């Protein structure tokens, strides 16, 4: 932790950056912190309760943050994939940012969860995560971490759902999605949802019905999942932010598996790697046209 604080202090004092975007303690665990004074750097922390993906603050649409000028951001490996995504999709320039990578051995689901990380409370998305540290970072801090161990298994859950027949599957998702109130917290918290005008807000024509009705809910969540195909960084923020408790991570995970099997692609923190949704290949499979 001291390593992180010293680095942050140095970056501010050397005027390399105007602000540090990191985490601090709060009465409900960890929360994002914007540090602009070197003296405040001792507030910075990092451990398994720092679940938030701070890349969500980097969208150029967030004008109040853009006003701060050059930033240093504390990123975990999954957050780095979001930063890479934003660079890849021309929302950020790599040289405008200082990235402080932190080594991570998994996080809990909510920042207010237990002070001890164990197999019971670890976020399901962290189980099987192979990246302990981001490769897209200017500085790397923290101790070496071991691979996270946990009981949750999203693949098992997905294969259970896949075993259901289409009617059962439809009724399962209908009941899950009927909880949605269309508050769009999933969209607001997602680092990859940076459109100036979301398709859900388009009215001429209104492709997605705006009322929280099952038809509109389905088109919203399926469109969102497809727009994140090959782009979702699996930071889990949408599911954490959802007040209705909809397992949105499952949808994203399913799509990620399809992208992996069809295009051999996994989201990486290498901004130069092209994504399936943003590339044109003559040899793409098109057996569905037949």
């Amino acid at each position: 932790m001291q390593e992180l604080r010293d680095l942050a202090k140095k970056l501010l004092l050397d005027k390399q950056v105007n602000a540090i975007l990191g985490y601090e303690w709060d009465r409900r665990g960890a929360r994002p912190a914007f540090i602009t004074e070197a003296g405040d750097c001792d507030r910075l922390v990092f451990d398994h309760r720092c679940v938030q993906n701070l890349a969500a603050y980097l969208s150029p649409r967030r004008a109040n943050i853009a006003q701060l000028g050059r930033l240093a951001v504390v990123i975990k490996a999954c957050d780095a994939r979001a930063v890479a995504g934003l660079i890849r999709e021309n929302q950020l320039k790599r040289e405008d940012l200082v990235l402080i990578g932190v080594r991570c051995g998994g996080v809990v689901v909510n920042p207010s969860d237990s002070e001890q990380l164990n197999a019971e409370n670890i976020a399901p998305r962290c189980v099987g995560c192979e990246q302990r540290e981001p490769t897209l970072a200017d500085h790397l801090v923290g101790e070496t971490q071991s691979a996270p161990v946990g009981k949750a298994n999203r693949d098992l859950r997905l294969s259970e759902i896949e075993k259901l027949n289409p009617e059962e599957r439809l009724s399962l998702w209908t009941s899950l999605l009927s909880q949605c109130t269309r508050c769009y917290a999933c969209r607001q918290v997602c680092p990859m949802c940076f459109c100036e005008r979301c398709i859900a807000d388009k009215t001429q024509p209104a492709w997605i019905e705006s009322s929280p009705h099952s038809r509109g809910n389905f088109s919203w969540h399926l469109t969102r999942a497809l727009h994140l195909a090959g782009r979702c960084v699996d930071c889990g923020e949408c599911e954490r932010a959802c007040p209705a408790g909809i397992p949105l991570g499952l949808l994203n995970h399913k799509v990620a598996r399809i992208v992996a099997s069809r295009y051999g692609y996994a989201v990486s923190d290498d901004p130069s790697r092209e994504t399936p949704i943003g590339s044109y290949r003559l040899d793409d499979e098109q057996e569905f046209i037949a």
Partner: protein
Amino acid sequence: MSRIGVFICHCGENIGRTVDCARVAQSLGDLPGVVHSVDYKYMCSDPGQVLIKQAIQEKNLDGIVVGACSPHMHEKTFRKAAASAGLNPFLCEMANLREHCSWIHEDRELATEKAIALGRFIVEKIKYNRPLSTIYIPVERRALVIGGGIAGIQAALDIADGGRDVILVEKESSIGGHMSQLSETFPTLDCSQCILTPRMVEVAQHPRIKLLAYSEVESVDGYIGNFQVKIRRKARSVDETKCNGCGECQKNCPNKKIPSEFDQGLGTRTAIYVPFPQAVPNIPVIDRASCALFRGRAKGVKKVVCGKCAEVCGRNAVDFDQQDSFVTEKVGAIVVATGYQLYSIGKSQELDILRGYGEYGYGTIPDVIDGLQFERLASASGPTGGKILRPSDGKEPKKIVFLQCIGSRDPAKGIEYCSKICCMYVAKHTMLYHHKVHDGKAVVFYMDIRAGGKGYDEFVRRAIEESHALYLRGRVSRLSRDGDVIRVQGFDTLSGEPVVINADMVVLATAMRPQPGIAALAQKLSVSYDQHGFLNEAHPKLRPVETNTAGVFLAGACQSPRDIPDSVAMASATASKVLGLFSKELLEREPLIARVDRMTCTGCFHCERVCPYGAVERKTLTDSKGRIIKVIAEVNQGVCQGCGTCQATCPSKSVELDGFTDEQIYAAVNAI
């Protein structure tokens, strides 16, 4: 749109047999906004078109739907009719009641229901149509021809004779291509060089042709009518403006033992050389990999190792310090005529799908040669002066076995297509052999004889009947060296017997493949290619010399295996296409292209990455004080082909395709 006219065509019996056209017209007439709805036997006929024109004028229609055949067939016809009656042509749409309905259904009741639905679909769509106007773009009336083989030469001459300037780019130091290597050509047996070299000279002397030999296309920007092409002029090490082609340098070059590419490795050349005496331009080039001076330089030797060529040059044309240079040319059309290479059948191959033929010992048995090598042996200008002699010991072969379809039509070796020219040139080889070695025996192993073409089959018959070539139907499994001879183990499928022949020489008719580097060139031009690298034409029957990139045309064997008559015909076809394009100062384009909404574009540039035509550009938006607001996508009207890939990809739906906007599609889908 509130005053829509609907016109249902019977297409004779084509639609009327399965669809109750009167009922369709009546039913669509009841839709809100439709003020006129009729059916007629032949809507595309003159009286049919008059019906449409009259209705537009009498009922003041502001949109018309023609329920007839595919828009591919008659959209232009009906749009023209609408325009002549004063309606914007893009307010006319077609519902396809023939290919999409009557031709594929049998039940009259159901087909009629479907026809009504299809009509309703378009009626709802047309309510959101906007008048569009034709786009005009200026045309730079000069052409670029890539490749100086017979196809490129023909295309360049035809375009230049048609009165337009041509830039001909050839990557070798001389034009002429593979045809210059051939001895005699089928089916007339006229000497290849005798008919080719006058054309080469014509190219060099034509006032409208700018020949850039020993050059390659580096990059291509722009679009039809307005390409900017950057061309790399490779360093010849000889100043083209000074050299007069006297040949002294070549005579005095001490390094005379370099295998000649022109002679397919059967002869030798010097390090400073012209590939063949009739080269155009007749200016030598230094092969820097073989030249002692450059090899010395590469090793870091300070002393000038050699320099004989420069010493003997009376015009100081040799320039050892010449560097690659670049020129940029603006052209309106590009003809690709890069030709072919022969399938080199050794075991190691650059493509994964190719397997090679280890069992034929090509490259290890010196008297197993390929078709082009045989051409050099038979050529009067070749390394043997036109005598057929074995490469191994210089003896005259008394028995030659020719193998057809080596690589071609052999999916197990990675090539399933027919190379088309081999049946003919093998027959030619047997004749040339017979003419030169009267007591020689030619044996041909073939799969089928494919000799379609004027005088082609007669030619093969002559080889068999007059030149006494023995044709055996079957394949050869192995070639091996047996003392002085080559043991050919094969199978004659007509007699059902295995055959073993002791041959003095074996000639392999290896497959035609596109030139190396074709994929890179295709990518520069945004032209698609098949798994073998042959460039794809826009339509195999109806647009055989065009590509899917407007303004880029194909001639010769870069598109598929072609013989000389085919290549020349194709080249003239491209020339007529190019001259057609250049006949107007402004190019008309259909306005059905993509448009980006500046307000909502986020600048993620997925559209730029998915666009197959490179039509998306980046535009920086600034306020009145020049401060950058954002960088957004913009569509170049000249390049966009209206495929809609960007529209489908844009996550915020900020791209619209005119004529197929979201609103139109949404209304249409809701109407089904």
